[in-house]
């Protein structure tokens, strides 16, 4: 099975090779994010090296105090060693504390730098990914990538990595200090490393799997939750609450179980660590005690050795705790790197062609399209739409009208053949020029939370308020907007829930008006409007479309009145093509449709 991109995201049973491939891509990602921070990274490492070294000196100084300074005082009334030890302790302490504080800030800065880098990458990349990716992946998953996954990386980078680096350095230095203080105890500690290593390896392997499971479980929880909250009306109207509750409870239980397993692992690892530590301590004490009895070791030194042994295992416990942070972050990183690995189905051109003033001449040249391999939706066809022409695209639902429109606005690329704007293949056109030239308004008039004015301004981000109002007036939206509580500043709530469906369409229409493109595509953009409002829109359209190319998809054939040319689609093919007057009087499909529509008016 492939683990490329987001495939295999729901699995937790990777083979070794697959695990390696996934790990490698995460490491690559992290590496590339770290690269620009090399200098800061080195400084940070130096700071932590010095800080940790300073932190290891303590017990040795206490030993000196007991073994040297106290006897010196008792025997010779010599205050110098004591003063030296105390001052040394204070100096090292202050230095260490400041360096550690500095290290905290430095590592947070690095962490934030990496995070913001990843955030932007994921954001931009998800914007680039084509619609078919989004349709399958669901928004809930992207939300969990950008929130909970990035958060666990943040926690790792801000606290965990610091802890890991600091902890392992600390263990290393402690070990060195212990060895130089008393090599016999050092050897004992070395022996203790063997069970420690085995234990930790077991824990690493076991917990990695569990962390993947918690990630998967939490993502499922998020997806279910988001979907049922977004569709709450339908949930209520169709009494889906009980079933939802059951499904949700199952997911909650999965998640709980995964969490409990993780805690259980810690419940084994943590006491086992303490056990190894305490046994080592006892052995060190036994050997040390016997050697003191023989006069081979000073008491202060024994204390230092014991303190070192104890503190050696201190970070091991914490590192275990942070190891889980590491685990959950690397599980998260795997998911994120998977998303980033997804290739956009509609890639940006490598050497884009600029098109400053598009005239709006659209051509399909032996284009073919299918959403999924093997199911051709639009069989091969050619079509030439001269600049400035207004086209009415009609046909039954599912005929492929929207698909054709999506191809022109390059939501998808044709699977065969090409589509050109003013002779330039859309795939080579600079994305900015493409989007400025071609705008599509869809039936699902999505509004972003924010004011009405903000939503219209999507069409032209730097538009002034008068411009925005002019656009609204042109499509007949001004009147109702003024009756809203705060007029143009009224918040439309999530997904525009504050305004009615028809009003949403008017707003998104004004948006397109403001964008002022050379090619305008309207895909059932007025389907929820009442007839008078639609008529107003059409009047606006007549002026708007005078000098631009337009493709209007509508079931109410009143649009035909303003069209220069009609295309009729059936099952993905264009079956009729001609001037409206000509088609209406004929015997074809359009004549039927038009007659049916005339009948439907009374």
């Amino acid at each position, binding site marked *: 099975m492939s683990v490329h991109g987001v495939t295999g995201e729901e699995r937790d049973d990777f083979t070794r090779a697959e695990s390696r491939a996934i790990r490698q891509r995460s490491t690559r990602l992290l590496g590339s994010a770290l690269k620009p921070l090399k200098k800061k990274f080195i400084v940070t490492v130096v700071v932590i090296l010095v800080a940790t070294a*300073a*932190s290891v*000196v*303590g017990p040795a*100084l206490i030993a000196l105090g*007991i073994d040297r300074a106290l006897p010196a005082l008792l025997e010779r009334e010599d205050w110098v060693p004591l003063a030296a030890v*105390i001052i040394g302790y*204070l100096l*090292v*302490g*202050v230095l260490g504390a400041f*360096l550690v*504080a500095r290290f905290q*800030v430095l590592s*947070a*800065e690095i962490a934030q730098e990496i995070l913001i880098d990843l955030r*932007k990458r994921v954001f931009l990349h998800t*914007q680039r990914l084509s619609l078919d990716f989004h349709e*399958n992946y*669901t928004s*809930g998953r992207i*939300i969990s990538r950008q*929130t*909970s996954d990035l*958060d*666990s990386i943040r*926690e790792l980078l801000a606290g*965990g990595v610091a802890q890991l680096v600091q902890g392992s350095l*600390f263990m290393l230095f402690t070990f060195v200090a212990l060895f130089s203080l008393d090599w016999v105890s050092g050897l004992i500690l070395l022996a203790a490393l063997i069970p420690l290593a085995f234990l930790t390896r077991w824990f690493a392997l076991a917990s990695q799997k569990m962390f993947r499971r918690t990630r998967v479980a*939490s993502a499922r929880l998020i997806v279910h*939750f*988001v979907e049922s909250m977004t569709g709450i009306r339908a949930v209520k109207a169709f*009494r*889906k609450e*009980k079933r939802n509750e059951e499904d949700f409870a199952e997911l*909650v239980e999965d998640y*709980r179980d995964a969490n409990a397993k993780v805690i259980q692992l810690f419940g084994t690892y943590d*006491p086992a660590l*303490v056990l190894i530590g*305490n*046994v080592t301590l*006892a052995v060190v*004490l036994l050997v040390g*005690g016997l050697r003191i009895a023989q006069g081979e070791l000073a008491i202060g030194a024994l204390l230092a050795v*014991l*303190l070192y042994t*104890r503190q050696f295992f201190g970070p091991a416990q914490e590192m275990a*705790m942070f190891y889980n942070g590491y685990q*959950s972050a690397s599980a998260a990183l795997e998911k994120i790197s998977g998303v980033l690995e997804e290739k956009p189905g509609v890639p940006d051109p490598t050497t884009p062609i600029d098109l400053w003033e598009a005239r709006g001449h659209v051509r399909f040249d032996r284009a073919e399209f299918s959403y999924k391999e093997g199911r051709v939706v639009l069989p091969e066809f050619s079509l030439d739409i001269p600049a400035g022409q207004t086209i009415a695209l009609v046909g039954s*639902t599912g005929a492929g009208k929207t698909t054709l429109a999506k191809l022109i606005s390059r939501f998808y690329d044709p699977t065969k053949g090409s589509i050109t704007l003013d002779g330039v293949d859309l795939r080579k056109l600079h994305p900015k020029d493409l*989007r400025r030239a071609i*705008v599509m308004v869809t039936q699902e008039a999505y509004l972003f939370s924010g004011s009405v004015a903000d939503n219209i301004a999507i069409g032209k981000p730097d538009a002034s308020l008068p411009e925005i109002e002019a656009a609204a007036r042109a499509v007949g939206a001004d009147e109702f907007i003024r009756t809203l*509580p705060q007029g143009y500043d009224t918040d439309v709530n999530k997904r525009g*829930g504050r305004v009615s469906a028809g009003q949403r369409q008017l707003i998104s229409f004004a*948006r397109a008006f403001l964008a002022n493109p050379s090619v305008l595509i309207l895909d*059932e953009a007025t389907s*929820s409007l*009442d007839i008078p409002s639609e008529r107003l829109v059409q009047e606006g359209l007549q002026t708007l479309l005078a000098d631009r190319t337009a493709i209007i998809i509508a079931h109410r054939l009143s649009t035909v009145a303003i069209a220069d040319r009609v295309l009729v689609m059936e099952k993905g093919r264009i079956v009729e093509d001609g001037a409206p007057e000509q088609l209406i009087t004929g015997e074809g499909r359009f004549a039927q449709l038009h007659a*049916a529509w005339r009948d439907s008016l*009374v």
Partner: protein
Amino acid sequence: MPSPGGRRNPSIVATTQEDFVLPESDRTTNPPTERRGTVATIFRLYPYVKPAMPRIVLGMIAALIGAVVALIIPQVLRGLVDGPLQDGDSAQVVPAVLLILALGVLEAVMIALRRWFVLTPGTQVESRLRNDFYRKLQDLPVAFHDRWQSGQLLSRMLSDLNHIRRWLSFGIVLFIVNIVTIGIGFGFLISINVYLGVGFLICSIPIWIYGYVFEKKYSVITRRSQDQAGDLATAVEESVHGIRVLKAFGRGKHMLRNFSSQAEDLRGTEIEKARAIAGIWLWLLLVPDVTFALALLAGVLLAYNGELSVGDLVGFFATATVLRWPIESIGFLLSMTFDTRTAVDRYFEVMDETNTIVDPAEPKTIAEPHGRLTFDGVHFRYQDSPENVPDLLNGIDLTLEPGETMALVGLTGSGKSTLTALPTRLYDVTGGAVLLDGVDVRELSREDLRSHIAMAFEDATLFSSSVRDNVLLGRQEFADGGPGADAALAEALEIAQATFVYDLPDGVDTKVGEEGLSLSGGQRQRLALARAVAAKPDVLVLDDPLSALDVDTEALVEAALRRVLASTTALIVAHRPSTVMLADRVALLENGRITAVGTHSQLLATSEHYRFVISSLEDDQDSDLREEVNA
């Protein structure tokens, strides 16, 4: 930083276990009106925690024994140093070491026990809280969901509850145990030497004070960072849901700019947070180090004066080392407790929300449903509409006789969709009543009511499950298939002209994707219609159900619908004459009232406004038509 013993990262307490802290945003939600005390707030968890109490208490006891054992080890050491070691009596060393070994093993066992005891309660309490939260959210009315971003609810559902679990599993146990440990530890220190012990105690006070002050400052920053993270999450959510618009206008980069500036804000806050943490680190390291240095000075001096043995000194430092971590941790455990209190607050902020649309205490039932739907002087206004504006629905009187099909016609924004939401109590009327077969809908249980009335919304929300599950959503008896399920499914698909689903890759078992967006608009709408029809309700409420259909398909659907509508009461919002033709009568909604009811031709003849709303013919044709009708 010469620190014997524990060195902990300040975030250690907050960052145990599989954390993922989800951002949250509260800017738009109301802060709780009354602020309870921390203890009182957290105590609200008690009903959930109660069944787990024995285990938590046992866990605490285990932890306490473990801590005491850890403290006894230095005492044995002290005896060892002053006794056998001083005397050079190696025979005595072994039993003392064995004792220490036994104590060491006991400590490990106690830690294991503590872990084991608190394992289940934390996660179970969390699950219970989470399920209750979800149940509550599904129960709360649509008006509530209008106000709350789903991201904000999500963060409560996930990160706040995770927080509570961690606190229950670690925070509370460690907090209480560490305080007791510190108490006992100081007892030991003082027993070794009064001056040294009291001195040590006094020197550690700054940490506690700073820890407390820090907490206050820190929680402000944390809250801000959570808010900013919430805005960021909302930006992400919208950038994905609105991807079609963003692509159509090529505004991905523009959104990225907004997103980036929000992300930069968040980074600023996060770094500020790191500085605060660095500040407390400084104290946490500096204070104990200075204390240790002073203790060393004092200890050596006391020993010099003969008031302290070497064993005492060893015992003192060994004990102080054991105490270092509990002392350091108090500040953070405190802050974790405050954070938990915030989490509990946020949780109950939703749980305390009073549901205005509830089942009556003694729900009535309709013995023999006929499907007479009556709007009796209905008034309705949205919660946020300005005061000087008249009610959106300003006295609606309308009766749908059993089996009758009524079309509802009105301008965009006149309140048609709002009206259709009232019979199923998605919103409750603010005046008057909606009656079903003479019973006020508020006197029926919601479950019962909604089994009588089925809806199709104007935006056809589908769920990301199979076509079958989507269409049979209103038929609970078919949830697991069952006899008749296929027939019901086929019939509904037939009526809604949604037989295209048989051509999908997996037929009726094809998953329709998030919100059904991989289907064309008209296909989605037909499935939503099929869903309403399949429910076989007494009353059908269809909000503009044919808007996305082409004329042919529309005609087919209409023909099929007529059969259903012959026996079912229906309220159909319509924009087009063709849809209106389905209806026996038409009601015209204008300025919040039903200003005219009658057949299509009656209204065409008598109502100026109706002609304005429904007729798309040119004015001259329009008048021709009127003459025709009048004639």
